[in-house]
């Protein structure tokens, strides 16, 4: 048909003005979509499988939160190509915000008081030990869990926005960017462990109250797992929408060739700031949810190895895909649980070997491997297929 139109128009106008159509997309994305949906459904399987083991459910609830954290790193590293080695900062900020809330709530409930901020509200144990006489004014309002959750998202968001804006404006890239993210998290780590009266110091905040939202207390860890996995899936779908939009393509373009993006007239620094801010907010939410399942929060989130392990999850699962980081976090963390139950000391070594192996042999992670196998299968097997 297009040939006919060209022929007719050729008589009237120069060929440059002839109107061919944009070819339609090949159907090869369908397989990926189906696999992704299956994967998301599978996320809800573990509680059924382990339904007589509350301990496992709690572990899975934690893993779901960590998977959300991995997702946030993938937006930055996988899609935009900025290797952050200090993303635990945003996770930690979210974690501490909710930890304050649950800690204050527990203290208040122990004294049989109402869960509201007041000058004479109950002191959490670590504040009492360090002889504070009342809860500091900037912590007290966090007893309200909704406020705490909002803070857990907004504070990381704002910190990420400022940090991102400044570093990207100054065109800090590559290794320097990674180092600066580490410097920042190190600074916060020192701040936290040296201010025991306000942060719980080296120990952090332990034996937190269970999460209660809208009068519903998450007594069973299954409930919490479904809650966190639900949020994970919602975030996944949101990210999928974003990454398949123009912004997503532009971020990939920045990863491929930032100079070219700027030559096109896009202010790459603003786009990087945008995605870094979003990523910081998601990391904060992940931290908040993790604390709800972990029932404690401590400076280990602010240690550099935590941030690096999170990058390993993304690498193992497959960077630059959305399934990858989640899969990576689930496999590596569950593997860690299974292996360290049997042989407690070999885990770190296995993790190191795993990382090296992935970097060397699976640059696109497990998702990349599966894709490749699938593609080869499609090509080799004699089933009917559309010609590209």
């Amino acid at each position, binding site marked *: 048909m297009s040939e006919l139109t060209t022929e007719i128009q050729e008589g009237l106008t120069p060929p440059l003005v002839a109107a061919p159509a944009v070819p339609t997309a090949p159907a090869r994305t369908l397989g990926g979509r189906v696999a992704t949906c299956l994967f998301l459904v599978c996320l809800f399987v573990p509680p059924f499988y382990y339904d007589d083991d509350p301990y496992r459910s709690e572990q899975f609830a934690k893993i779901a939160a960590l998977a959300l954290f991995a997702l946030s790193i993938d937006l930055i590293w996988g899609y935009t190509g900025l290797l952050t080695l200090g993303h635990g900062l945003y996770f930690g900020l979210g974690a501490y915000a909710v930890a304050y809330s649950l800690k204050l709530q527990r203290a208040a409930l122990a004294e049989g008081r109402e869960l509201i901020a007041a000058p004479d509200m109950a002191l959490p144990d670590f504040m009492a030990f360090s002889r504070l006489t009342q809860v500091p004014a900037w912590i007290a309002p966090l007893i309200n869990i909704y406020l705490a959750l909002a803070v857990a998202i907004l504070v990381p968001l704002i910190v990420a926005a400022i940090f991102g804006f400044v570093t990207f404006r100054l065109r800090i890239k590559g290794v320097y960017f990674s180092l600066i993210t580490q410097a920042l998290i190190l600074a916060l780590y020192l701040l936290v462990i040296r201010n025991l009266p306000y942060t719980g110091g080296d120990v952090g905040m332990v034996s937190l109250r269970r999460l209660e939202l809208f009068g519903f207390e998450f007594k069973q860890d299954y409930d919490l797992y479904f809650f966190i996995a639900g949020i994970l899936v919602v975030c996944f779908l949101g990210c999928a929408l974003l990454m398949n939009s123009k912004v997503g393509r532009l971020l990939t373009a920045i990863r491929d060739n930032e100079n070219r993006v700027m030559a096109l*007239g896009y202010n790459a620094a603003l786009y990087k700031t945008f995605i870094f801010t979003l990523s910081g907010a998601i990391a904060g939410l992940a931290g908040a949810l993790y604390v709800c399942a972990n029932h404690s929060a401590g400076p280990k989130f602010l240690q550099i190895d935590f941030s690096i392990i999170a990058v390993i999850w993304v690498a193992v699962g497959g960077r630059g895909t959305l399934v990858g980081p989640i899969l990576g976090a689930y496999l590596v963390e569950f593997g860690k649980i299974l292996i360290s139950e049997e042989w407690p000391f070999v885990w770190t070594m296995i993790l190191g070997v795993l990382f090296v192996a992935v970097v060397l042999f699976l640059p696109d992670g497990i998702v990349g491997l599966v894709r490749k196998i699938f593609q080869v299968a499609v090509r080799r097997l004699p089933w009917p297929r559309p010609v590209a």
Partner: protein
Amino acid sequence: MGFQSKIVPEEILQVKEVTVDFSGFKALNELNFSIERGELRVVIGPNGAGKTTLLDAVTGKVKPTAGRIVFQPNERPACDLAHYQEAEIARLGIGRKFQTPNVFKSLTVLDNLRLSLKYPRGVLHTLMAPFLQDGKDLLAEILDTIGLGPKAYREAGILSHGEKQWLELGMLLAQDPELLLIDEPVAGMTPRESERTGDLLLAMARKHTLLVIDHDMTFVRQIASKVTVLHEGRLLSQGTVREVQDNPKVMEVYLGHHKIEKKTPAAPTPAAASPKGHAIQKPIGHHA
């Protein structure tokens, strides 16, 4: 060239006394030259003459040490490009093709073009943009022009060298800038590919002002009406292809390149043949 006569000659870019100094080495040395709207200008010059640096200076990638670069000097607020950043200059309407192919390798051909389309570049606008619907007709036209329609959904990274260059020219078309700066579009191409590229550039020149950098004289003859020769950061000669080829100063700087086939009358000493060439080298030696 008929199309040029329809447009009133009006300068679109003025480069005035521009010097770019890389810690003592002057890649551009008080360079003066200008381009008119609707022109297809070719800039040639030996390696290291400062051609790429000229484009860097215009697009804001390097800031001139001295001098002014004015874009659309006749417009109401004439833009002194020194006051703008790289992305802003691109938004003013100056598109650039780098010397090496510069496509987004993990995006499809079509997405490469889509990102280049002339829509507002702000984050909010990009967030709201109906990416897949935008600019279908223009995209189809461009794919047709650059001949990559059958590969629209291939990743740009797996295209051949020539195809990547064409894709990049297509991206410039999608960007639809006032002025197009194109650095060595046929480097590394076969003669056939290079001829196709020439046709493509001629087609582009119908609607745009082009500044093309190249070495290859066959190619220059195919596309050029007016040629500017740079040498050691200065303008050496300017005119039609013929005029430039016959210029003894040009012949001299190109002697080692075998690109100008006309015989030179006995090899003269540099000073005798080109007193200016001698004068150029002096300040450089002085600085180095």
